C-alpha cells in the first residue's frame, strides 16, 4: 500500500469488505455470549465509513479521524465507542504526518490499544478485544521491517490472542453476565480485531 492518506483509504475499503463478509460469523459468536449484534453493528459502522471515504482527508491521521467519528456515530454497541476511541487515538498519534512509517504504525496501534483500555477498562484476560489488540501491539513493536511486516506480525498475534479467548471467563462487557458459561466461546470483539488487523496487513502487502 502507498503509505499516505490514499493508501489508508484503500485499506479502509478492504476492511469494510472483510467486515461485510464476516458479518454472520461475528453475529453468531456474539449470539453465544452476548446479544448477537456485533456483526451487524460493525457492518452498519463500516458501511457508513465507506460512504465517507471519498476525499476523507489528506493525511492518514485525518482519514482515521473520520473513520473514528463515523464508527462512534453509527455502530450502536460497545464496539462503537471502543473502536471509535481506538481510531481517534491512533489518528491523534499520527498527527499531521503525510506518510506512515513502520514505527508510526506501531505507535498508532499502541495509541489505539491505550484508547480502548481507557474507554473500556478491560485488562488482558477479561475476554475482550483487548486480548487480541494487546499481543498485536507487542508484536508490532518487536517487529522490524516494512509496514506490511509490522501489520502482519500484529495480525498473526491478534489471531492467536482471539483464539486464546475461547477458554476464558468474561469479566467485561455483556458476556460477563454469563459468568462461567462464557467459557468455551471466542470473544466476538477479539475476533473482529483480528479480522481488522488482517485486512490492514493484506492491504499493506
Amino acid at each position, binding site marked *: 500500500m502507498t503509505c499516505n492518506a490514499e493508501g489508508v483509504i484503500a485499506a479502509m475499503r478492504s476492511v469494510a469488505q472483510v467486515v461485510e463478509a464476516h458479518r454472520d460469523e461475528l453475529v453468531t459468536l456474539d449470539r453465544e455470549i*452476548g*446479544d*448477537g449484534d456485533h456483526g451487524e453493528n460493525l457492518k452498519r459502522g463500516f458501511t457508513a465509513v465507506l460512504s465517507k471515504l471519498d476525499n476523507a482527508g489528506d493525511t492518514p491521521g485525518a482519514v482515521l479521524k473520520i473513520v473514528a467519528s463515523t464508527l462512534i456515530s453509527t455502530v450502536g454497541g460497545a464496539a462503537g465507542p471502543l473502536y471509535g476511541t481506538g481510531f481517534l487515538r491512533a489518528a491523534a498519534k499520527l498527527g499531521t504526518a503525510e506518510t506512515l512509517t513502520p514505527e508510526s504504525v506501531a505507535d498508532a496501534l499502541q495509541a489505539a490499544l491505550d484508547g480502548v483500555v481507557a474507554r473500556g*477498562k*478491560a485488562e488482558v484476560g477479561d475476554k475482550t478485544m483487548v486480548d487480541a489488540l494487546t499481543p498485536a501491539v507487542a508484536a508490532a513493536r518487536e517487529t522490524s521491517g516494512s509496514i506490511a511486516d509490522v501489520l502482519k506480525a500484529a495480525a498473526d498475534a491478534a489471531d492467536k490472542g482471539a483464539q486464546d479467548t475461547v477458554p476464558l471467563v468474561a*469479566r*467485561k*462487557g*455483556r458476556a*460477563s*453476565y*454469563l459468568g462461567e*458459561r462464557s467459557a468455551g466461546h471466542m470473544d466476538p470483539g477479539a475476533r473482529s480485531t483480528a479480522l481488522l488487523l488482517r485486512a490492514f496487513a493484506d492491504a499493506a502487502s
Partner: protein
Amino acid sequence: MIGLVLVSHSARLAEGLAELAAQMAPDVRILPAGGLSDGTLGTDFDAVSTAVDRAESGDGVLLLYDLGSAKMTADLAVEMLGDPSRAAVADAPFVEGAVAAAVAAQGGGDLDTVMTAAVSAGAPE
C-alpha cells in the same frame, strides 16, 4: 425455566426493559406489567397477577419492581397465588437486576439462582 415479571409504574419502561433483557435471554418468558389500564402511571395488581401466570412455565417466577409501591403490589400478587412459594420478589436494581436475572434464567438456573443473580447485580462493566 424461570419466568420474569417486570412490575413498573410505566408501560413503556416495563416493555423496554423486557426487550432489553430478552436480548440475552431469548428463551425466557419475560412479561412486562407496567402502568394502569387507562395509560396513566401506576401499578396494576390484576395485570401483575396475569403476568405471573403467563410467566410461569413450571419452574417458578421472579418479580422485579421499579419503586417501593410497585414492590408492595408485587408482594401482594405473590401472596395471593395458589402456591406463593412458586414466585418471589427480588429487591434488586430494576434494570440491572432484570438483565442479570434473565441471563441466569436462560442458563437454566432455579429460582434461588435467578434471585441471587438479580440481587447481586450492579452496574455492569
